[in-house]
C-alpha cells in the first residue's frame, strides 16, 4: 500500500524540486500531504489533500564529522541507514529514535525527516533530551516554496529565532524538511539494566525516581506492569527497569552502588549488555502494546503522576499501559471510542500534562482532538505563526488540529 501511495505522490529528487512542487501547490492553492515514506501516516489526524509530497527521494548523508559530533543528512534518508552509518564510527543518534512501524501497522521505512517532524524520542529522552534537543540545523521549504535554513552545523548557536525547535515536532505543517543536522554522541562501552521485580506502580515509580535522582547517570527508567511485561524480553511480571550506559568499569561500579541504594525497594537483578539492548528496544518501540487492539495514546506528565493516571484509566476502561521516562510517559491502549479518549484527556489534564492520540481508526482521529487544544491567546498566536510559514494553509492541513 505504501508503495502505491508513493507512486501517486510527488517525490522530487532534490530540494529545488521540493521548492518547485510547493510553489506550484501554493499558486494553485492546493493542499499537500507532506510525508517522508509515509510510515507515520496512521498517526494524528488524517489530512485532506489533493496530493502527497514525499521527501523520500531526498536521500543520503551530506556531512559526517565524528570528531565534531555532527551528522547532516537529507530528510528522506532512512533512519536505519543513519543508525548503521554512525554505528560504524562508534557513535549513535542520541534521541534513540523509536520505530513505530509495528505499532502503526506500517511496512514503509521510517526516514530522518519523519522522525524529526514528529520529534520522536526514545527512553534516553529522560536523561539526554528529546530529538529536538539534538537538532542543530535544518533546511526546509515553507508553504510559499521558499527555502529556509535555521541553525547550522555547529554545536552551539543562538543566532536568530530557533526555527529548528519550532519545525521539530511540527509534523510537516509549517515547512517541508529537506535536510537535518544532528548532534551525535559516542556509543557507550557497556550497558546494563537493573531490574526490580514485583513492585506496584507507585513503589515502582518511587524506585525510578530514586535511581534518576542518584549521581550514577541513569540513562533510562521504565515501569512495566504484570499485564504487559512479558512482551519485554527478560521480564515476566511487574518490573521497574533502570539503565546504565557508560564505560565498562563505570557500569560495574554504578550497578553495585545503585543496587545498594535501591535495596529498600527489594531485590535487584542486573541484565547484561545484550539483554539490555533487547529490553530497551522493546520499551522504545512500545512493543508491550503492539498487539493490543484499539487505540494507543501517549500521555506526558510529571513522573510521580504516571501511576495515578494508569490506575484511573484501568478503572475506566481496563486500559493496558506501561510507563517510560521515569513514570512521566504513560503509554496507554484501550478501546477506540470517544468515551475512552475523553477519559485519557481528562486524566492528562487533571495531572497538568499533555496527550497524543497516536493510533486509532481514521474516524476517531478525525472526530476528536488528537493533541490538547491551546488556550485562546496561544491559539491566536499559533494561527499567525502558521500563516507566517504557510499563508494558504496548504501544508498538512488538519494534521494536528481540525481546521488548522
Amino acid at each position, binding site marked *: 500500500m505504501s508503495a502505491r501511495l508513493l507512486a501517486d505522490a510527488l517525490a522530487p529528487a532534490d530540494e529545488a524540486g521540493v521548492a518547485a512542487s510547493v510553489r506550484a501547490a501554493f499558486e494553485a492553492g492546493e493542499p499537500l500531504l507532506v510525508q517522508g515514506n509515509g510510515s507515520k501516516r496512521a498517526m494524528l489526524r488524517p489530512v485532506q489533500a489533493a496530493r502527497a509530497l514525499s521527501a523520500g527521494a531526498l536521500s543520503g548523508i551530506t556531512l559526517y564529522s565524528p570528531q565534531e559530533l555532527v551528522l547532516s543528512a537529507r530528510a528522506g534518508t532512512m533512519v536505519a541507514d543513519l543508525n548503521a552509518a554512525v554505528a560504524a564510527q562508534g557513535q549513535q543518534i542520541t534521541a534513540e529514535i523509536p520505530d513505530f512501524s509495528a505499532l502503526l501497522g506500517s511496512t514503509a521505512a521510517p526516514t530522518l525527516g519523519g522522525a524529526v517532524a514528529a520529534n520522536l524520542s526514545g527512553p534516553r529522552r529522560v536523561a539526554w533530551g*528529546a530529538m529536538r534537543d539534538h537538532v542543530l540545523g535544518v533546511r526546509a521549504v515553507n508553504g510559499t516554496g521558499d527555502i529556509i535554513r535555521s541553525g547550522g552545523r555547529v554545536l552551539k548557536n543562538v543566532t536568530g529565532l530557533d526555527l529548528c525547535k519550532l519545525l521539530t515536532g511540527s509534523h510537516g505543517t509549517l515547512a517541508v524538511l529537506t535536510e537535518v543536522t544532528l548532534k551525535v554522541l559516542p556509543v557507550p562501552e557497556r550497558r546494563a539494566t537493573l531490574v526490580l521485580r514485583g513492585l506496584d506502580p507507585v513503589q515502582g515509580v518511587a524506585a525510578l525516581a530514586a535511581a534518576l535522582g542518584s549521581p550514577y547517570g541513569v540513562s533510562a527508567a521504565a515501569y512495566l506492569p504484570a499485564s504487559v511485561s512479558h512482551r519485554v524480553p527478560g521480564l515476566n511480571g511487574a518490573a521497574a527497569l533502570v539503565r546504565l550506559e557508560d564505560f565498562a568499569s563505570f557500569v560495574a*561500579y554504578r550497578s553495585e552502588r545503585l543496587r545498594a541504594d535501591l535495596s529498600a525497594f527489594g531485590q535487584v537483578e542486573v541484565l547484561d549488555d545484550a539483554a539490555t539492548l533487547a529490553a530497551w528496544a522493546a520499551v522504545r518501540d512500545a512493543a508491550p502494546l503492539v498487539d493490543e487492539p484499539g487505540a494507543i495514546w501517549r500521555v506526558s506528565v510529571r513522573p510521580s503522576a504516571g501511576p495515578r493516571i494508569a490506575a484511573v484509566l484501568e478503572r475506566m476502561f481496563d486500559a493496558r499501559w506501561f510507563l517510560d521516562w521515569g513514570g512521566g510517559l504513560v503509554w496507554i491502549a484501550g478501546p477506540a471510542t470517544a468515551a475512552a479518549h475523553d477519559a485519557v484527556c481528562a486524566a492528562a489534564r487533571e495531572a497538568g500534562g499533555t496527550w497524543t492520540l497516536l493510533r486509532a481508526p481514521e474516524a476517531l482521529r478525525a472526530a476528536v482532538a488528537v493533541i490538547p487544544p491551546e*488556550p485562546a491567546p496561544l491559539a491566536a498566536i499559533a494561527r499567525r505563526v502558521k500563516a507566517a510559514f504557510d499563508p494558504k494553509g496548504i501544508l498538512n492541513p488538519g494534521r494536528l488540529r481540525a481546521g488548522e
Partner: protein
Amino acid sequence: MITQLPPRQDVLARRDAIVAGLRRLLPPDGVIAEKLLLKPYETDGLTAYRQVPLAVVLPETTAQVAAIMAFLHREGVRVVPRGAGTSLSGGALPMQDAVVLGLMRMNRILEIDTADRLAVVQAGVTNIGITQAVQAEGFFYAPDPSSQLACMIGGNVNMNAGGAHCLRYGVTANNLLGLKIVTVDGQVIELGGAHLDAAGYDWLGLLTGSEGQLAIVTEVTVRILRSPEGARAMLAAFRANEVAGACVASIIASGIIPVALEFMDRPAIHACEAFAHAGYPLDAEAMLIIEVEGSPAEQDELLGRLRDICARHDPISVKVSSSVAESAAIWKGRKGAFGAVGRISPDYLCMDGVIPTSRLAEVLRRIGEMSAERGLQVANIFHAGDGNLHPLIMFDANDPDSFARAERFGADVLTLCVEVGGCLTGEHGVGVEKRDLMGVQFTATELDQQRRIKSAFDPGWLLNPSKVFPLQPAPA
C-alpha cells in the same frame, strides 16, 4: 556605531501621562522616572552603548506584568525587558521612548520537587540562586554561565545561556520544562509545565533564545539534576594552537565527552596568570583545561585516558589535579579571565562566534593576523568541545577610533566564523551588537521568515525594538 530606531515623538510628549498610568498599576517604589535614578539602567554588559529609558517598572507578580503590558500596549509604548542586565550583546539596551521592564523583584522560588527533578522559579531568580536552593538536597541546575552570580533565569532563557559545562549538560534550552509568559498585549500563557515535550508546536523551544522579541517571561520551570559524586580537572599545555586543536579532536574521537573542555591561547594564558597566579605554563602557545566527573576511581580512569591522549600530542606539560583544591587552582585563572583581560585593557569586546572545531587552528591564525594588522590586542578563550570562541578584543574607550576599529575587527571575526561554516553567536545573543551582521548568516528570505514570526507574537513591534533584526531589510 549602531543606529537605533528614532524615538516616537508622540510617546516622548506623553511621558508624564504614561508614567502616571504606570504608577496606578504598581506600588510607589515600583516605577522609576527620575533622571538620576534611571541612570543605572542606561546600559547592560555591553557598556559601549548607553541610553536612558523613558521609565523603569519593577513588578513583583505576573499579574502586575500583565497589567503593565496591557497598558503600554494600549498606549503604543515600546518595552525593553531586563533581567540582571549582564547581556554582552546589548540585548537589554534601553531606548529613549521605551519603558524598561525589570524582572529583578520577581525573585521567589515557587516550588522545588526533587522526586520529579524540577524547580519552578520566578524570572528574576539568579542562575546560581536555583542551584543554591536545591544543593542541600544534592541537586544542581546545570547551565552555568560565568555571570551566574548575577544573571537571572529569565535572561538566561531569553539568551539561551550556556556555560563551561554545556558540552555534557546542554544549554538553557535543554534544561527547561515550562514557562509562564505575558504577551505584548498583557495575556498570560503557560507553556509546557512539569512534564516533558508538550504535544504541538515547541513554543518553549521558540521562546528560548528569543531575546525579549516575543513575550515577557515571568516564571520558569527548570530541570534539576543530581550532583555528580565529584569532579576533577587537568591542564595540558601545547606548543601550538594546531596541536591543541588536534588534541581536542582526539579526545572527542576517543569516545570521552569531558564535562568541560576549555581552550586558552598564549595572550589569554599570560593575562590570566598575571592576574590569578594559577601556575599556568607561560611558555605554552595553547592550553586546555579538561574536567571530568564521577567517583574518585572513575575520575582516575578518565584522567588517565586523557593524559595518554594528551601525551600523543607532544605536550609541554600535563598537570592532573589530585584534589578539589588543585582543581580549583586550575580553574582559578580561567574563571577570572574577563577580569584579567580587564586589567591589561579596561575596555574590550567579548566576541561569541562558533566554528566547526576542525577549523580551529586556521581561524586562530587568521584572528592573529587581523590583530597584528589592526594594532589591537586579542586574547582567545573558548569552549573547545563545541567550538564556541570568545576572542576578547582590547581597545581604548577614550579613543573613538580605537572603538570603531575594535567593532570592525569583531565584525570581521564573526564573518570569518560564518564563512568557515559556523555562526555569529553561540550563547551571548545577537542583541544590538550583531544585528547588522545577520545578513552575513541569513538570506533576506530567511530573515523575513523570522520577522513574520516576530510579527505573529508582536504585531506592532513594541517588544525590545532595534535588536536582533536589521532595521532595514538586507538588500537582495
